[in-house]
């Protein structure tokens, strides 16, 4: 698309999307780091992740302000308006991802280091998948690529499967070793968090789809994902 | 040498000298300013040229004033001097004759090929006059040069980096412009003063009321000065003229501005303007040579019709009708172009508004455009009436000379302007009631047209303000 006649408008829009991508990058690294902290029981890293959430929050506040500013002062229309409103959703989602990572890191601090390795491995594997999903979602935001966005939507099914199996596995462990109920509950919550992150990544992809096409992704399927966590009930 | 100065076309020479001085002063001032600025002319308060103009202005203005004063009063000074030098017996002649005597001296002295008349006293005075004129001219020129030099040095001394040369020069220009505007006012004052002055002199001899309400006019004989017949003739002819001009002018204007294609307009408009450009004396000739005989023939024919009493119409060779018709033609362009202006001043948006309501063109014109333009049109008509009343040549040539009151348009009538011309043409003394009566008539004419004009101008102004 050509630039706006008023280049400052283009600049601001670009600045906003750069900010979001920075937030996204941060969130991505937080996912990986949080899962690494769990896997290696690295409490330092966990604390670092907790700290990093603060920057995401700040970036979100900044992005939100920029969005309000853009709407108030530039009156974006058509594609620009969708870009701005999409960015608002994106910022919220990424911020939530940050929160969820922080939550994982915090739960990591509650662990005792001798949890079921298989479950921990599961978390790690799941986090890789989620991180990859997020990365792809951000990538399709960057490239405004709706085909990629559709792929991201499909990826969510895998993550839900991941979560469901992890949930069942962990429940089994808990029953096997009631002493580990506490830490296993945390592991379940972590998995749940990762699953939620996946949902948010999916939301990002959907937002991109909306931004580019001006249409919401088709109803039912998306919605079931929005509600999030049926997988575990299976 | 004095003699040569007495005859030289000094004015031109002086002009050249002053112009040269101005150029020099300009150059000096400009150079000085550039010097002050040391190259950074944008640092000066005013640009160097303005410093130049200032010095030039300071140089010529005093000289010009002196020369102007000399032109005004120089001759009277010389005359006073001559009068003082003339022998006692001539001075004893009395003011009027003395003045006439000096007139003759000055006339003789200023004649280039004047020969001695043989009258020793007169010739001596004449020579003396020439000398005195030369002397006074030298004195004036010297004074002017001195003043110019003084002005020049004063001007130079004022120059500095902060000096607001531009403002001073502009003040000078504004003053000059103001003087020009004042001339227009002086003209009116001149008109009113001269008319009033002479009219008062007339009324000191003839009763105002018998002038304004008298019905007998025999000014040539100096007997009767009752101006009613003149007023009657004037208004009758003006009325006849408006009868022709008002409908034709108005409808032409409407047609041109609302109906005519640009092509037709571009052809017809100049043709109508052509009517306005024809001098009135030509209309007069036309009325006299062409229209008056037709009017007369028609009147004769009507007189010959059965049931028409013999001599029902006067059928004179010159007639009010002939003058009125031709005057009407003359006035058409006034009415049409003034009306055209006011009609065009009605914004197009109003017409669009009416068209968009589903009005036809004529409905738009009659119900929207004309009501909007009405004040302007009325003003145009008033101005046209004023014009008709003041018109001179057509009536002088075609209306006749007889002061009478008759509703018969084929009779010859006279008007105010005709009488003024009749009374003042040729050599006239300014002291007879006959001459003065012309000024009294002029005064009446002035007042009447003034009233019409003032009303019209006021209406037009109001109208303009509405659409601007």
């Amino acid at each position, binding site marked *: 698309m*050509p630039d706006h006649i008023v280049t400052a*408008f283009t600049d601001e829009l670009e600045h906003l999307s750069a900010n979001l991508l920075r937030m996204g990058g941060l969130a991505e690294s937080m996912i990986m780091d949080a899962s690494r902290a769990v896997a290696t029981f690295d409490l330092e890293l966990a604390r670092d992740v907790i700290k990093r959430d603060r920057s995401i929050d700040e970036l979100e506040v900044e992005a939100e302000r920029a969005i309000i500013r853009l709407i108030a002062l530039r009156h974006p229309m*058509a594609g620009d308006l969708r870009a701005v409103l999409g960015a608002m959703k994106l910022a919220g989602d990424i911020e939530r991802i940050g929160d969820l990572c922080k939550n994982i890191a915090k739960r990591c601090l509650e662990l005792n280091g001798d949890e079921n390795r298989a479950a921990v491995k599961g978390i790690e594997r799941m986090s890789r998948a989620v991180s990859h999903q997020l990365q792809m979602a951000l990538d399709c935001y960057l490239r405004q690529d709706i085909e990629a966005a559709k792929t991201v939507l499909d990826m969510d099914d895998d993550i839900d499967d991941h979560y469901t199996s992890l949930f069942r596995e962990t429940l089994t462990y808990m029953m096997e070793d009631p002493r580990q109920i506490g830490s296993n509950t945390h592991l379940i919550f972590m998995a749940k968090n990762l699953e939620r992150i996946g949902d948010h990544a999916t939301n990002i992809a959907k937002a991109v789809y909306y931004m580019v096409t001006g*249409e919401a992704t088709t109803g039912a399927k998306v919605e079931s994902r929005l509600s999030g966590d049926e997988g575990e009930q299976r | 040498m004095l003699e040569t100065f007495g005859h030289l076309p000094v004015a031109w020479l002086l002009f050249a000298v002053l112009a040269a001085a101005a150029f020099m002063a300009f150059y000096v001032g400009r150079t000085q300013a550039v010097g002050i600025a040391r190259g950074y002319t944008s640092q000066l308060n005013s640009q160097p040229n303005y410093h130049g103009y200032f010095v030039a202005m300071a140089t010529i203005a005093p000289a010009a004033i002196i020369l102007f004063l000399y032109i005004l009063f120089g001759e009277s000074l010389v005359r006073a001097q001559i009068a003082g030098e003339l022998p006692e017996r001539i001075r004893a002649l009395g003011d009027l004759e003395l003045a006439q005597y000096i007139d003759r001296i000055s006339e003789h002295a200023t004649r280039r090929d004047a020969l001695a008349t043989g009258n020793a006293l007169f010739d001596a005075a004449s020579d003396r006059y020439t000398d005195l004129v030369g002397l006074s001219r030298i004195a004036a020129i010297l004074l002017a040069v001195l003043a110019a030099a003084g002005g020049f040095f004063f001007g130079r001394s004022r120059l500095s980096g902060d000096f607001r040369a531009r403002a001073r020069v502009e003040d000078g220009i504004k003053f000059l412009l103001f003087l020009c505007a004042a001339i227009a006012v002086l003209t009116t004052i001149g008109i009113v003063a001269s008319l009033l002055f002479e009219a008062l002199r007339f009324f000191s001899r003839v009763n105002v009321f018998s002038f304004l309400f008298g019905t007998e006019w025999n000014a040539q004989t100096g007997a009767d000065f009752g101006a009613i017949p003149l007023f009657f003739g004037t208004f009758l002819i003006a009325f006849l003229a408006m009868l022709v001009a008002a409908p034709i002018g108005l409808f032409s204007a409407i047609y041109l501005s609302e109906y005519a294609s640009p092509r037709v307009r571009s052809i017809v408009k100049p043709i109508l303007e052509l009517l306005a450009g024809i001098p009135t004396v030509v209309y007069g000739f036309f009325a006299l040579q062409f229209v008056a005989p037709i009017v007369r023939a028609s009147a004769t024919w009507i007189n010959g019709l059965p049931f028409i009493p013999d001599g029902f119409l006067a059928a004179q060779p010159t007639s009010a009708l002939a003058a009125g018709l031709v005057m009407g033609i003359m006035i058409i362009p006034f009415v049409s172009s003034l009306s055209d202006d006011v009609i065009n001043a009605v914004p197009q948006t109003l017409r669009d508004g009416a068209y*968009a*309501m*589903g009005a036809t063109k004529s409905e738009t014109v009659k119900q929207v455009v004309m*009501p909007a333009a009405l004040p302007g049109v009325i003003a145009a008509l008033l101005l046209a009436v004023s014009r008709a009343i003041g018109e001179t040549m057509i009536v002088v040539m075609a209306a006749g000379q007889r002061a009478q009151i008759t509703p018969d348009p084929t009779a010859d009538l006279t008007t105010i302007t005709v009488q003024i011309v009749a009374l003042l043409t040729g050599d006239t003394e300014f002291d007879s009631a006959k001459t003065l009566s012309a000024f009294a008539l002029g005064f009446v004419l002035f007042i009447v047209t003034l009233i019409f004009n003032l009303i019209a101008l006021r209406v037009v102004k109001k109208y303009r303000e509405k659409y601007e």
Partner: protein
Amino acid sequence: MDGNMEHFTQTKSSARADTASAPIKVDCQNIDVYYGDKQAIEDISLQIEDRSVTAFIGPSGCGKSTFLRCINRMNDTIESAKVTGKIFMDGANINDPAIDPVLLRSRVGMVFQKPNPFPKSIYDNIAYGPRIHGLASGKAEMDEVVENSLRKAGLWEEVKDRLLAPGTGLSGGQQQRLCIARAIAVSPEVILMDEPCSALDPIATAKIEELIDELRERYCIVIVTHSMQQAARVSQKTAFFHLGKLIEYGDTERIFTNPEHGRTQDYITGRFG
């Protein structure tokens, strides 16, 4: 041309899809307008719905005003203008030479860029149209027409005590509403507005917009506007013109959030170079 046609059929169908049920009031088919040798409008077809506001937008010189003036044949008053194509209103082609523009204009009112009340009283301004068309048979009936029109234009309360005061004495916004009342007085079915707010300040503009929104319930309104924002605010349908062609036509909401055509998007978002 071809591309445009193709595109056009596409948008027309989509426009129909947008609001399938609305009745069509004005159906313009293949309109061309020439000013002398210059073509100002190129093959525009467009269906305007009844009881809604349709806005024409586009950069200056895009032909939106010219097209508007086709609908009540105001172009007839311009010497050099030539209009071809058909415009059906209730089944009759108004470009038919048998149609008298004078009658047409009584059914298609128009409001102009600059408020142009006649230099008459407020009452006479309104009564003028009904009078020439013989729409009111007596003083009482005329009074009623005047009051109704003023009420509909939301001006009655403001002027009812000075109906005999000159219309030109009102404020700019009031004058424009008077002009709207004047247009309403001849009971038109369609009201055309040519940048009706461009000479007004934001407050007066808002009042006119409010009025347009109210009038929508009774009339088919077509508005040309310079300001996209205004089109967005008042209209249900928007048509985007460019260089004498119709680029896109559809629901206003869609045009401003998700235009189909790249040029519309560029114009609306300020990317037009």
